[in-house]
């Protein structure tokens, strides 16, 4: 599905923990210590209540396929057709990803399908959190 032309993220001080987490085989989320809000993408304060008292924790990795398209046009680092998906993590937040380990067809990608992470090492600095069907 992918090759080295895929555009890769450049972590910032506020997102570094997330990208260190994927290298360690974890999806790291943040929870507000004051209002218990779990949120993504990373930032050092709660977007629900503006508290700076937040903690990083390891998410379970369990997710469901929330929505997607199957892109039929070429894009750098991708061979069409490929699905661009949004998954909903068990803890609540959603994130964009790709679904691997199954055909990129509507039949193989029913909404709400249960997913687990597949950590794809791109280089020494970046590992992307992709997902695959829980029942392989």
């Amino acid at each position, binding site marked *: 599905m992918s090759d080295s032309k*895929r*555009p*890769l*993220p*450049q*972590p*910032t001080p506020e*997102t570094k923990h997330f*990208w260190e987490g994927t290298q360690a085989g974890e999806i790291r989320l943040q929870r507000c210590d004051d209002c218990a809000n779990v949120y*993504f*993408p990373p930032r050092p304060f709660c977007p629900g209540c503006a508290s700076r008292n937040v903690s990083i924790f390891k998410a379970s990795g369990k997710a469901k396929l*929330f*929505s*997607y*398209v*199957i*892109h*039929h*046009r070429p*894009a*750098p*680092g*991708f061979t069409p*057709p*490929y699905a*661009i*998906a*949004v998954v909903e993590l068990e803890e609540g937040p*959603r*994130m*964009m*990803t*790709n679904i691997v380990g199954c055909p990129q067809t*509507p039949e193989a990608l029913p*909404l709400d399908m249960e997913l687990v992470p597949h950590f794809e090492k791109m280089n020494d600095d970046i590992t*992307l959190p992709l997902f695959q069907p829980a029942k392989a």
Partner: protein
Amino acid sequence: MLKQREIAVVGAAETTRLGVIPDMSNIQLHADCALNAMRDAGLKPSDIDGIACAGESPTNMAHYLGITPSWVDGTAVGGCSFMIHVRHAAAAISAGLCKTVLITHGESGKSQIGLNRAPPGRSSLMGQFEMPYGVYGPPSMFTIPVLRMMKETGLTEEHLAMVAVIQREWSSQNPRAAMQQRCTVDDVLNSRMIAWPFRLFMCCLVTDGGGALILTAADRAKDMPQKPVYILGTGESVETPMISQMADFTRSRAFRVAGPTAFNAAGIKHADVDHLMIYDAFAHLPIYGLEDLGFVGRGEAGDFIKERNTAPGGKLPMNTNGGGLSYTHTGMYGMFALQESIRQMRGTAPAQVQGAKISVCHGVGGMFAASGTIVFTNEG
């Protein structure tokens, strides 16, 4: 608060040509329609003391056109920036910050001459959390929520196709529309797959062009050459730069703030609306717009369109220029939706809605990232 009918649009024009214009740069497209709008209003650059634009900075446009502004607005939140410029300009004129505002849009979206666009950086939120997954232009992003919408509300691919079919009925009456040939649901469903479930005819055009508006106080408008079009109400909002972080994939929060704000300010009910524009970068946007603005209930917009309520002869004529799907779409389409609302209120549209007195013009920016809504009337 801005009073109803306090501010009027007194100049409105598009670029002389639309479509493929390889002999004009981005800034010249802004200027071409600005010159046309000033001629339309009977004004010179020295009469303009406020300027707003997106895609070029207000500094670029003031210098290029020879304008010395005492008020500027460079709000650039995508294709609805121009609705928001109208709102800000009306407030500025009402507050006495300036008297006469020029809003310009020009975009060499097709020919890509002199464009000032930069992609999001790799360290931006999009660059870190969306771009690594193969998003590549609006067709690969704006479309992502729709499968969720279909599962939760019963919206179908045929419903999406009908949006395109009916807008071709409108564009077939418009000699300036890029696509004038009528089409069927099968034509749409059999057109090239872009990002399943979206086919080519469910996606907007990519063109060159522009449009400009001139606003001033209603009491000054009476002495000007064109029939004034009054601003009844306005609204704006933003939600998120990332489609993956849209709070509800079946509703736009930005729509649900901007729309009701404008309706409340205008003091109108849905039944009062004679003409409607809902920015249609893709076929699902009028569906979300009709539901989020409250014209129909949740899950009802697909059938509402299928039953021809928004078609020629229907009770709620919508996207009467053919829309972004069939008229023109330079990248930021909102200005063209505004131009059609003004034509309908002036009574000069190619597919004129007879007797229309109130027009609602609703825009989106980014991928459900921003929104602006304007309610116009031709009754002073």
